[in-house]
């Protein structure tokens, strides 16, 4: 089931009637989610990603625009009629029911032609329970389960009615780091096995990048960029996206373009053909640095952190915007940790130049 958004907008009226300030949670959102894919809605808190999810589920009504499931306009349909599965951030498992009763609940709600015989309900419940690997826990109450197990039950409950779309709201935020890694693989596997179009919301860029087929990066209700995780990482459209993706984060500097050359401080670090003279922000990915004695970019060396496979070099430069410059270089580089300075050559495709006012990307020929 592909999902189409047409200039979707959600405005929350102001609580304070006097000031009349409205909150635009989602602004002019147009996008098509291809069938059977896993989509990550990504952004800092308050960026409208959960609102978007709730508008797909029908729990919130858009102020403007339309939502289509396939060719059906579902904008005016109530939640009950949309046939979506939703996994809540806190799972919202009914505490008074066993796991089995929780999973059976959506099936028992079916009325009329959709009504299933008892036997088939049980079969389907057991099928999804097996799928999420909780078939051993069917008689337990949610309070007797760990966070990860509750999470699986919530997914099973959302899947059992074979929804047209599966929605997950911050599905991993309540799990510890280790369980989070494991569960995100599980979500990937379950999505692959069922082939249900799945949309999940997260503020964790690593989580979104690692399992999504596509990510949608949002900021203050406005979509910043949509694409495959690697493409968005390699080719951010603006400074916000560049900063938001990647650990360690991108290093940002104040720079100047003059005569087709990019200057950071006094150093002409790169040729940027086709860019007019102006002040710019420069973003350099940590892996974009090559340690080179004769390199054009000079920094003060602070420390060297050995991580085995790689070496993380911490340095600083007067033009930097972030607290330190962190670069990841191959461990084969022998770096003298006692030296005062370090010099780099930059990999051109890891360097992004942004307009100082709009923070939009300025492309240059490599």
């Amino acid at each position, binding site marked *: 089931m592909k999902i189409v958004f047409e200039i979707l907008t959600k405005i929350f009226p102001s609580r304070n009637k006097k000031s009349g300030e409205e909150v635009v949670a989602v602004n002019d959102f147009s996008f098509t989610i291809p069938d059977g894919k896993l989509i990550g809605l990504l952004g800092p808190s308050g960026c409208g990603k959960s609102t978007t999810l709730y508008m797909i*589920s029908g729990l919130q009504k858009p102020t403007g625009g339309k939502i289509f499931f396939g060719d059906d306009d579902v904008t005016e349909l109530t*939640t*009950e009629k949309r046939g979506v599965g939703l996994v*809540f951030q806190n799972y919202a498992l*009914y505490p*008074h029911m066993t796991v089995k009763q929780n999973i059976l609940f959506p099936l028992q*709600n079916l009325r009329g032609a959709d009504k299933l015989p008892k036997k088939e309900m049980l079969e389907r419940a057991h099928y999804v329970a097996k799928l999420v690997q909780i078939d051993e826990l069917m008689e337990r109450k949610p309070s007797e389960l760990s966070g990860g197990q509750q999470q699986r039950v919530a997914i099973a409950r959302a899947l059992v009615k074979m929804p047209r779309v599966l929605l997950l709201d911050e599905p991993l935020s309540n799990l510890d780091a280790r369980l989070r890694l494991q569960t995100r693989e599980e979500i990937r596997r379950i999505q692959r096995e069922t082939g249900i179009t799945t949309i999940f919301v997260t503020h964790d860029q690593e989580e979104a990048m690692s399992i999504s087929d596509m990510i949608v990066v949002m900021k203050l209700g406005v979509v910043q960029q949509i694409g495959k995780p690697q493409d968005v990482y390699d080719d951010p459209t603006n400074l916000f996206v560049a900063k938001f993706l990647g650990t360690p984060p991108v290093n940002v500097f104040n720079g100047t373009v003059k005569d087709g050359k990019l200057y950071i401080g006094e150093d002409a670090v790169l040729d940027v053909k086709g860019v007019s003279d102006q002040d710019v922000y420069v973003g350099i990915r940590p892996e974009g640095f090559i340690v080179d004695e004769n390199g054009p970019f000079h920094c003060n060396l602070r420390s060297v952190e050995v991580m085995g496979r790689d070496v993380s070099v911490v340095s600083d430069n007067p033009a930097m915007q972030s607290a330190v410059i962190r670069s990841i270089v191959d461990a084969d580089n022998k770096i003298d940790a006692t030296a005062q300075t370090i010099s780099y050559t930059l990999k051109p495709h890891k360097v992004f130049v942004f307009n100082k006012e709009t923070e939009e990307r300025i492309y240059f020929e490599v």
Partner: protein
Amino acid sequence: MVDSKQQWKAWLYLAPAIILLLIFTVWPIINTVRMAFINGFDFSYIAENTKDEKIISIGIRNFADVIRNPFFTNALKNTLILCVLTVPLSTFLALLIAVCLNSIKPLQKLLQTIFFLPYVTNSIAIGMVFAAMFNIVGNVVGNDIHGPLINNPGIINYVLEFLGFDRINWMNNGSSYWANIWVMVIYIVWNALPFKILILLGGLQSVNKQYYDAAKVDSTPKWRVFTKITVPLLSPMLAYVIITGFIGGFKEYSSIVGVFGDILMGPPHDPGRLNTVVGMIYDYIEKRNFGIASAGALILFVIILIVTFINLWVSKKKVHY
């Protein structure tokens, strides 16, 4: 934990409360038990024991007297009937009203206040208004000595007539027992609603909204949301109002006084017909039969204890904490 050397401080701070409790709660309870087991206790032996003629005899004669008294069995019957009718009815209505109140936004606060008004109104005053609504205006003790009984069909009968029903003699001379009981049931239920609505509404408002969102996503019919989600999640509060309702029901007394007056406790032609167990205990005290009154109080205590145990036993199976 408090350091054992400091424990005396804890006891010191608790002392005012403990001393008052010992004097005004614990000792009276012990004394009630003592009086109940002294045959025919009426304090007279204290006055007369200097002559040492009266020998205190310990036994269960007081209990036998209570149980053999037909007025007591009648009072127990009244109490049980009122309990069994009013507790489920008031709980069900309170649940309905609380759910409705919780689902509306405009006027919610105003209606909440209106529903809570009976709670802050004097129950005797409410009883007099109810008596007027059903039949009687003015002095209930309407015999020739106190002046004529003011007979009035009452607003309820006017409404019944308007709807095409016959008038009912609710509580006047010659009224039937069940007519009297229904007057009491309506009064007690109405009087009990505010507290129950308050508790249940509080419970409803603390239920996580996500359960309802989840139910919506799963296309749950409204009735099923109510029976499968709302009621189970409210079950601790429901258990609370049912248990306290039964306890209050067994202590029913002032409501009868409010409606029928403390002298009649029933319709004019059959005084005392609606008396309750607590009313009987007061009657015995008035007649200085303290031993029998204590025995009655203990019997009531045991009944309430048993009913509460049954309630707790049921709620253990049905309540989801």
